[in-house]
């Protein structure tokens, strides 16, 4: 990587006179610039999407607090025994990280939305709630229900919180999609720059023939082309990057109140991510042009 960068820099320095031997303008030039710009623009979006969905997945999973609830309804005198039995069962259940009975205060807080803050929880015949925290793998709800039925007849397992699970999956899938798009876009950009370089080399057969005729070394010819293309890809990518970032900046931000979806923008040091795209494009161009030039020069007798 370091060595490659060094070589890229050496190639870019070049010398002003060598530079003039390759026709400066032309449509393949515009094409390279444009492809690099468009692809980087799209890559910025894919990157933003990928990062945003990553944040989303993180937030959703932490919000989820993979919990479910066990509700134990029993006559007051059996309540404590059944609760302990239930906790024992849960302790030995695979996929359950921890389980604990809720205190009176906690139950009151939970019920507040329904009864207001002053529910006389003590005096109500309400069930004891047990909070179950799952570990990463999750437990087998059906199996747990069977065991509880046998040992704690008054227990009802409620994993209604599970409905949020697909959200996290969805977010991860989106993140994956973003990464896959970046890869795709990167590959497409590399291919396009290669093709544009090849097209330019093919269009400049006469230039190559003349340079060879007057005694130019192949490395000199290669360098002239590589320099052109690397610079073009670099500037194209820089333009695309700036435009992409601007476009993301002017996108309406996500409603903060909701906080459910994070904006598509970058956050914090993530703003640095797009910066690596132009050098990446430059390196791709450097490598692609050099390969193309060398092959072309080997083809021409």
């Amino acid at each position, binding site marked *: 990587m370091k060595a490659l960068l060094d070589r890229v820099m050496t190639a870019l320095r070049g010398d002003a006179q060598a530079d003039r031997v390759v026709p400066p303008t032309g449509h393949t030039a515009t094409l390279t610039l444009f492809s690099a710009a468009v692809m980087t623009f799209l890559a910025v979006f894919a990157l933003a999407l990928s990062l945003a969905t990553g944040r989303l997945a993180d937030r959703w999973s932490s919000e989820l607090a993979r919990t479910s609830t066990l509700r134990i309804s029993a006559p007051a005198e059996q309540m404590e025994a059944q609760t302990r039995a239930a906790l024992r069962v849960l302790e030995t259940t695979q996929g359950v990280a921890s389980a604990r009975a809720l205190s009176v205060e906690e139950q009151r807080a939970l019920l507040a939305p329904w009864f207001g803050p002053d529910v006389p929880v003590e005096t109500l015949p309400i069930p004891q709630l047990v909070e179950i925290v799952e570990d990463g793998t999750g437990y087998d709800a059906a199996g747990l229900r069977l065991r509880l039925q046998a040992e704690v007849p008054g227990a009802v397992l409620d994993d209604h919180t599970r409905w949020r699970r697909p959200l996290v999956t969805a977010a991860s899938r989106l993140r994956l999609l973003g990464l896959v798009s970046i890869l795709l876009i990167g590959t497409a950009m590399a291919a396009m720059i290669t093709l544009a370089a090849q097209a330019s080399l093919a269009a400049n057969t006469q230039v190559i023939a003349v*340079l060879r005729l*007057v*005694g130019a070394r*192949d490395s000199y010819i290669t360098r002239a082309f590589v320099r052109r293309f690397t610079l073009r890809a670099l500037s194209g990518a820089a333009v695309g990057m700036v435009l992409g970032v601007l476009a993301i900046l002017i996108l309406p931000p996500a409603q903060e109140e909701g906080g459910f979806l994070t904006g598509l923008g970058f956050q914090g040091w993530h703003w640095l991510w797009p910066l690596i795209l132009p050098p990446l494009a430059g390196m791709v161009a450097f490598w692609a042009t050099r390969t193309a030039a060398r092959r072309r020069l080997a083809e021409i007798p």
Partner: protein
Amino acid sequence: MIELENVAYNYGGGDLLSDVTLKLAPGSFHFLTGPSGAGKTTFLKLCYGALVPTAGQASLFGQDVRGMDRDAVALARRRIGVVHQDCTFLDHLPIAENVALPLVVSGRDALKEQANLKDLLAWVGLSSRAQARPPELSGGERQRAALARAIIMSPDVILADEPTGNVDWEMSQRLLTLLVELNRMGKTVLVATHDLSLIRAAKTHVQARVLRIAQRRVQLAGADL
């Protein structure tokens, strides 16, 4: 300088040239004639390493062409000035820069040779067209520019393929004088041409050997020329 030994060449079909043995000695002056399609251009390409013999051995400055890599060929080319039959240039650069191109690619300081360049352009009658791009030149002007480009480095060997095909008689005499002058300075010169009157005119100035391609062989032409 350039030696061919039992060289044969074909473009895939039957042999175009065969059994060619020739030595271009330093300071010699050669003409090469032969009907159109006989293989004059092919012969020249063998002489500057653009083609590799299909049989026999060609050597440039003592090196066997078959054993030379591209860099070695490039270095040899800097000692050989070539005027191509179809004069090609870098169409985006003015004629002056095109003529100076051999200096540029060999890393020499083109600015230092500015006076030399000017003289040369004046001699071939292109002073007023120095800033024109090659496609804006007439056929004969392009040929003259190609000759100027071939000799700007004052190479040891000059190979010219029909350098006067598109210029009038006076101009062709002028160009010939230039080549004779260079030959007097010790350069080796080989001119391929179908113009026998040019050869006759040259013979009054310089002791030139005339080669003729006939029946796939390169032969010394008789005294009838």
